[in-house]
């Protein structure tokens, strides 16, 4: 088995490798280590399972393409993810050729669990290499593995890796350069679970020395983290810290971005003559772009927390603590992370529901995720609260404005629980919702992997949301500018435009809830992308008001023109605000169903209208 010479290695066709293993074996870290940024993330055709493929060049110069298959405990698939892994390994996935080599990744500190899958994969008859990942952790714990004995017993090469270390995959790379190992010897009929279990035990006895106590740190941490009182307290503190960070750390950065966008707009505007093009560029494109980028700090900070907690092994414990509560409401413990993510933006939140295995829980989570107060609602809340809620202190301690904001958050969460409960109540399929969730060992999160994860999410947010919002901003600009008012017009310019016509028409629909036509106009793009609503309002009032600089001061303007009841109704509407088009598009993608997308939009619209109606009428009664 000699390594091929460099020239012939480079000329050979690319080696197709698949990484397989249990969840929590560090497969993804290994994948990142091998491919760095040379990875492409998409979906397997026709399903919402992530397909991660990357490529690299082996030390001998050979092209290698590696597929990171979803983690699976067994080829008897219990979820869509596992079914994909099974299908690709069997060569039954249309469009995915069978891999040339299976790289079976195991957690060296947990061989008793992980070797089972290795034995199952061995029966596939594909060339295999066994990778003992996290070998540094195994060594630290005093676990000694005799690689040669294991390789002889399994009939395949065995290498050790430390995926989080810079050159930690060197031994694997060397093994890839060697000639393809023979497929492991075929065995007879599939053994029973007990037989497999005994085989694993036999292997462990022959090749592995484990000291008596290996999970001391895990146990000590879990005594507190899983404690009914302290565990929940820790979770509450973590959540509080997270939100503090998202709102206070992000604020200066967001201000900076807003200032930069404004400055850039002025710069561009100063170089162009007054007219359509300038208006389109400055008020349309640049403002639209700015309104997307400004949310990036919050999203990145939130995901920094979430990814760190996930890498550390804490998140399944949080899911465990909350599971019963969420089950009562018709969700699952695993819904926690997607819903948490939705506080920044529902789009990554809804994408995160892929980890929820039960399809009913997944759909429920997707349907209620938009009710979590996303960052895009905040400008609207801030504007309305600033304009209409007096800055008073209540009970000597609490800021009234802060209280109202908090109440809006709570309203979102409570309505989510109610909707989830209603869905559970009317559900016909009442069978068990399985949990069966592994609590992996605690690990120190690796900064590089977190950085790659953040980059991926930022990219998705910018490309998905950016495209939609840019288009919408330009569209609104167009609607608000054309047709221009005829000569001698007395009413504000916007009255004559398409936007004005649409607004007047919508006024009939929204008059019962107290929305005037300016709000109605702003709602149209606001329906499609919430963050555009404030900009739309500014446009409506600025374009329709005088050229006075005051026109840019939106708050006092609406404070003087709207009634308190209208403002409160608008706040209530926004708690439910039918979602932005980006979210709708993601829902359709993630569920492969127009029905779910339509159901989501309609129910949010209905709830929003009802809430606004009730609030308006009640507010009128009191005033």
């Amino acid at each position: 088995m000699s390594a091929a010479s460099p020239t012939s290695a480079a000329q050979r066709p690319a080696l197709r490798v698949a990484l397989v293993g249990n969840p929590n074996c560090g497969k993804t870290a290994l994948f990142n280590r091998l491919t760095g940024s040379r990875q492409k993330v998409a979906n397997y055709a026709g399903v919402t399972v992530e397909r991660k493929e990357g490529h690299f060049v082996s030390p001998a110069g050979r092209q290698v393409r590696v597929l990171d298959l979803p983690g699976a405990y067994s080829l008897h698939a219990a979820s869509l993810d596992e079914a994909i892994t099974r299908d690709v390994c069997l060569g039954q996935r249309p469009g995915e050729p069978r891999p040339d080599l299976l790289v079976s990744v195991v957690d060296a500190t947990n061989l008793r669990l992980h070797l089972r899958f290795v034995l199952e994969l061995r029966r596939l008859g594909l060339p295999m290499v066994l990778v003992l990942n996290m070998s540094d952790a195994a060594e630290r714990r005093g676990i000694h593995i005799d690689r040669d004995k294991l390789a002889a017993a399994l009939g395949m090469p065995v290498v050790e890796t430390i995926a989080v270390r810079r050159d930690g995959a060197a031994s694997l790379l060397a093994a890839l350069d060697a000639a393809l190992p023979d497929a492991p010897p075929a065995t007879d009929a599939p053994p029973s679970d007990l037989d497999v279990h005994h085989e694993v035990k036999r292997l462990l006895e022959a090749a592995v020395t484990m000291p008596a106590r290996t999970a001391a740190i895990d146990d000590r941490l879990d005594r507190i983290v899983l404690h009914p009182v302290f565990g929940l307290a820790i979770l509450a503190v973590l959540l509080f810290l997270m939100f503090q960070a998202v709102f206070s750390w992000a604020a200066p950065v967001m201000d900076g971005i807003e200032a930069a966008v404004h400055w850039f707009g002025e710069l561009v505007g100063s170089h162009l003559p007054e007219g359509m093009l300038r208006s389109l560029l400055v008020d349309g494109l640049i403002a639209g772009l700015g309104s997307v980028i400004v949310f990036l700090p919050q999203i990145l900070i939130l995901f920094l927390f979430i990814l760190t907690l996930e890498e550390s092994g804490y998140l399944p414990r949080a899911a465990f603590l909350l599971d019963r509560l969420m089950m009562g409401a018709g969700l699952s413990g695993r819904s926690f992370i997607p819903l948490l993510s939705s506080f920044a933006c529902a789009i990554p939140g809804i994408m995160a529901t892929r980890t929820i295995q039960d399809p009913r829980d997944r759909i429920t989570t997707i349907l209620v995720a938009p009710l979590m107060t996303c960052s895009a609602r905040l400008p609207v809340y801030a504007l309305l609260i600033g304009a209409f809620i007096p800055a008073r202190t209540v009970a000597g301690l609490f800021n009234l404005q802060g209280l109202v904001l908090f109440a809006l958050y709570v309203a979102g969460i409570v309505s989510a629980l109610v909707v989830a409960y209603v869905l559970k109540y009317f559900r016909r399929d009442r069978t068990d919702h399985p949990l069966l969730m592994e609590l992996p060992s605690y690990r120190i999160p690796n900064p590089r992997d977190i950085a790659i994860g953040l980059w991926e999410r930022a990219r998705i947010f910018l490309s998905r949301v950016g495209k939609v919002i840019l288009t919408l901003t330009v569209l609104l600009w167009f609607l608000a500018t054309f047709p221009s008012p005829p000569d001698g017009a007395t009413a504000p310019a916007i009255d004559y435009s398409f936007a004005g016509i649409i607004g007047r028409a919508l006024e009939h629909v929204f008059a019962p809830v107290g929305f005037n036509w300016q709000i109605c106009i702003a709602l149209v793009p606001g329906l499609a992308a919430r963050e555009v609503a404030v900009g739309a309002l500014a446009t409506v009032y600025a374009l329709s008001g005088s050229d006075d600089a005051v026109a840019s001061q939106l708050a006092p303007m609406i404070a003087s023109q709207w009634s308190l009841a209208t403002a409160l109704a608008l706040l209530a509407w926004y708690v439910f605000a039918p979602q932005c088009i980006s979210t709708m598009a993601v829902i359709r993608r993630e569920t492969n169903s127009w029905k779910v997308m339509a159901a989501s939009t309609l129910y949010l619209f209905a709830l929003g209208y009802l809430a606004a109606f009730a609030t308006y009428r009640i507010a009128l009664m009191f005033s």
Partner: protein
Amino acid sequence: MRLSELPRRTAAVIVSVDDTSSSDPVARRLRELGFVPGEAVQVIALGPFGMDPLVAQVGFTRFALRRSEAARITVEAVSASVSSITPAAQPDAPAAKRTAA
């Protein structure tokens, strides 16, 4: 007794994993995860609300299970409450078959 009834931090050995229906995917998955006769098991933690779900340690791996899932597993306590997390040294389960693969 069932795993869902086992007191916390009491060392026990698994006797059997029972299907609730003819082809119970949960029971199969439990076996695949290492809940097999003869294996040491302990309940590490109980959920804060209604003691559901629970965290069971089998071998060196911890799993969060619903009570209904844990109820499929029949166990036998080895000794009185023990604080060690080491899987108890176990005799060869007498019913285990050592058939050639």
